């Protein structure tokens, strides 16, 4: 029995506006409980919502980026249910007439060609508050700061077929929203959350199986693990003669399993209807055009450009373009160094390692891109060797300073003067007659010893290529 898993993701993207979607309270993260919940957010008697222009702009930006129809006319609806983190007893969302229609996203997985995943729609809605469950005996504490933060809910077609694909899609979406600067992408803070709809069917069948929904996953890894678990669970169920029930589940990362949530939500009839406190949203071509004019180079286009114009490998291009900060940093380094491959290597290698050790994001790099750029330029123009450059990099990282100043202060210029190198070689050869004899007798490995000695004598500054050439010559005789 071959099973096929069918997966769709609903991703909630918290839009990086300054204020809430329907009120003028701040939407910044991490404030004291309820210190950013104004009367509108609290749903006090008599308050009314007014729509944030930037949230609309960000939604349109997203729509354009996925090649979607941006709907000139859209409506906000009330989604009615009771929960303590939902002060009004309804969430303002968009039901039948969302702001963004059909689009698509190209997803790169580790194995296999890029896959186009359809996006059904994306709509604006308000976020709910947060619950604190374990702080008070028998009670739950409610913090409504997050209430009213704008969300863009992006709904994919059920085009994903594996957990890995789903994780890659989530990652790609994460990259895109960061490029567009519509979301800070901070998963730990809940800036993006994902619900996964998973179902199973026999390979070849066209009808969808009964699906279960895993809610609120907020890491790439957990998306993959949760979906894999759920696929397994459903397959086992069906193979043992059972049926899959339509339900809502939570992923428990500690136990690596999904658990059914209390079935309250299922019996809910949300009674969607247009919110009478808001009017239909109409955006004109001028609005859309202005947003289009502000679009950055998108990740897919950038990746292609790196491969075709800068001759980077697919892997390198993929690595660098995944994070807009990395791409930006790389491009700034390249602008100074002039060598894309070298720049890529150093960003992906030395810099990345140093950042990891210091637990910093590239945006927090203590080195501005211009510095590694300058360093690589000095490798390019032969001023220093690659090896010496690594040392300079360490110095820059630990102590700061300027590349050229360090080279000068520590006398690190590569020695390229043939005569100088020749003298060193002559000295070493004269001082090591035994090894000379061994080499001339056929022990090629001894060559390395001579190279090492010359480099040591030159304090690492001799140009390795020249050392190699001159040494070979010298040892022939």
């Amino acid at each position, binding site marked *: 029995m071959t099973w096929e898993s069918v997966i769709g993701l609903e991703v909630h993207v918290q839009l990086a506006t300054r204020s809430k979607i329907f009120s003028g309270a701040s939407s910044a993260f991490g404030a004291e409980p309820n210190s950013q919940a104004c009367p509108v957010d609290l749903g006090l008697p008599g308050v009314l919502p007014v729509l944030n222009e930037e949230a609309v702009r960000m939604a349109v930006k997203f729509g354009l980026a996925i090649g979607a129809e941006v709907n000139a006319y859209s409506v906000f609806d009330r989604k009615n249910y009771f929960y*303590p983190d939902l*002060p009004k*007893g309804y969430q303002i969302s968009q039901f039948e007439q969302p702001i963004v229609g059909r689009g698509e996203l190209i997803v790169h997985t580790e194995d296999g060609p890029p896959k186009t995943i359809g996006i059904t729609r994306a709509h604006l809605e308000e976020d709910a508050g947060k619950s604190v469950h374990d702080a008070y005996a028998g009670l739950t504490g409610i913090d409504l700061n997050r209430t009213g933060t704008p969300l863009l809910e992006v709904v994919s077609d059920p085009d994903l077929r594996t957990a890995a694909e789903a994780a890659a899609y989530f990652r790609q979406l994460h990259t895109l929203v960061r490029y567009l600067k519509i979301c800070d992408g901070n998963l730990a803070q809940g800036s993006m959350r994902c619900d996964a709809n998973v179902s199973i069917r026999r390979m070849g069948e066209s009808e969808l199986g009964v699906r279960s929904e895993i809610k609120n996953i907020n890491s790439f890894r957990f998306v993959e693990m949760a979906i894999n678990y759920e696929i397994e669970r459903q397959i086992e169920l069906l193979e043992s003669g059972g049926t899959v029930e339509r339900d809502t589940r939570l992923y428990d990362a500690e136990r690596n399993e999904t658990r059914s949530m209390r079935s309250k939500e299922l019996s809910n009839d949300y009674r969607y*209807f247009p919110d009478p406190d808001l009017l239909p949203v109409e955006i004109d071509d001028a609005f859309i055009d202005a947003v289009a004019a502000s679009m950055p180079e998108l990740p897919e286009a950038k990746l292609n450009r790196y491969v075709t114009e800068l001759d980077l490998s697919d892997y390198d291009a993929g690595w660098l373009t995944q994070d807009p900060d990395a791409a930006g940093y790389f491009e700034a380094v390249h602008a100074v160094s002039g060598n894309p491959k070298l720049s890529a290597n150093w960003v992906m290698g030395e810099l990345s390692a140093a950042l990891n050790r210091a637990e910093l994001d590239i945006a927090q790099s203590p080195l501005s891109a211009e510095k590694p750029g300058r360093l690589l330029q000095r490798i390019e123009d032969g001023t220093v060797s690659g090896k010496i450059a690594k040392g300079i990099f360490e110095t820059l990282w630990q102590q700061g300073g300027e590349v050229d100043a360090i080279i000068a202060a520590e006398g690190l210029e590569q020695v390229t003067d043939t005569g100088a190198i020749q003298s060193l070689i002559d000295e070493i050869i004269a001082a090591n007659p035994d090894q000379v004899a061994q080499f001339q007798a056929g022990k090629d490995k001894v060559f390395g010893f001579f190279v090492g000695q010359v480099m040591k004598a030159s304090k690492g500054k001799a140009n390795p290529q020249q050392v190699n050439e001159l040494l070979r010559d010298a040892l022939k005789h």
Partner: protein
Amino acid sequence: MHADSSLIELANGLKNRTFSSLELTNAYLSAIDESQDELNAFITVTADIARAQAKAADERLAAGDAPALCGVPLAYKDIFCTEGVATTCGSRMLENFIAPYTATAIARLNDAGAVMLGKTNLDEFAMGSSNENSYFGSVANPWDPSRVPGGSSGGSACAVAAGLAPAALGTDTGGSIRQPAAFCGVSGLKPTYGRVSRYGMVAFASSLDQGGVFARGAADIAMVLGHMAGFDPRDSTSADQTDDWLTACRSQPPSAASQGRIGIPKQYFVDLGVTDASMQNACRTLEAAGFTLVDVSVPHVDAAIACYYIIAGAEASTNLSRYDGVRFGHRCEDPQSLDDLYRRSRSEGFGAEVKRRILTGTYALSVGYYDAYYLKAQKIRRLIQQDFLDAFADVDLIIAPTTPDVAFKRGDLVDDPVAMYQQDIYTIPASLAGLPAMSIPCGQHQGLPLGMQLIGPHFAERTLLETAAAFQQLTDFHQLRPEPTA
């Protein structure tokens, strides 16, 4: 002392320093105090605040150049949020709710120097037509205390009629200003939808609610409306409409119109019964004043009541979901679980009428019924609006009775919701269409007041007020007072 004076007269008296705002305010406070046992028009009397505001107003008046409304005492339906003062909406649910902010409409009146006498009684959450649905007791009609004042703005209508305030604010969703105005023999205006900000006006039915004014006559209403009305960025449904004429009404009464075409909807002028004589007289008066009466037709009004109850019920059912005992308002004792908290708090906090409306509203929106009920009602709503707009192509305004009869006896309709709904038969269509509409006294039947309704095109308050002014120049129904009750 000043119970017989119109708001305009009082404003002038204050400006001319004939009396002070403090004197005036104290006079009203006394009258209110004496009336409470019998009439129960007020839920909260804000005596200290009123006196403080009056003193500040007197200083401003002495300095000169104060707005015309400065120092004038007003009463506000207890559905408007007033900072630092209880805002109960006539409900146990909000019995102890002290609003942390002030409704825009009232804030504007405060800026103009008005004095707040108190918060008037109302049907709970504005749901009702008799003011018998208040947690704080029913309100009596000052013309006959065994009768209702109308609702839901019963307290405000009563207050003006009984001389407890020269003007009062109300809200009108399906007739809640106009019907009590008619029952109490005062003038009452529901402005165009979007004319007055709804921010801070606790929502009943969002696409129908409008804040408005009760007073003796058109000029009084115009002055208050002139200060209250206007675009509010906090209300998405607020109309971005500046009306110089209305702004001028802050200090200048509307002139009486002397001509115009008035539509007589044939659907309304059948079987008038009790209202027949007064409507006929009113028609003749208007003709004498220079107006031309023209037959018009608004064929879809028959479906108006059904349409209204679906829409209002649906919107209200969700507007009231925020009352859950979590952040403010009534909470049950010792909740055992979240569900228990919600159900008991809400069931204890809401009265029977409110609960019924929530349930019927929930039904109208529930799965399977949305198209047949809510969507259908919104389509009929457009047809009704179109009827009026078509009529307005030919006439400047439309008149109709405000109510089918005089104020009914307390307790008569409590068990008959359908008969209660029928009270709003003339008033509902203007609400659905968002049109400005006003009730002015036009006669009496067995000593009890009757009202005539004027309905205008969107933003044509000027037409209504100038026509009312003309009518009130030629009649004195609006000057009649109930006998002071022993």
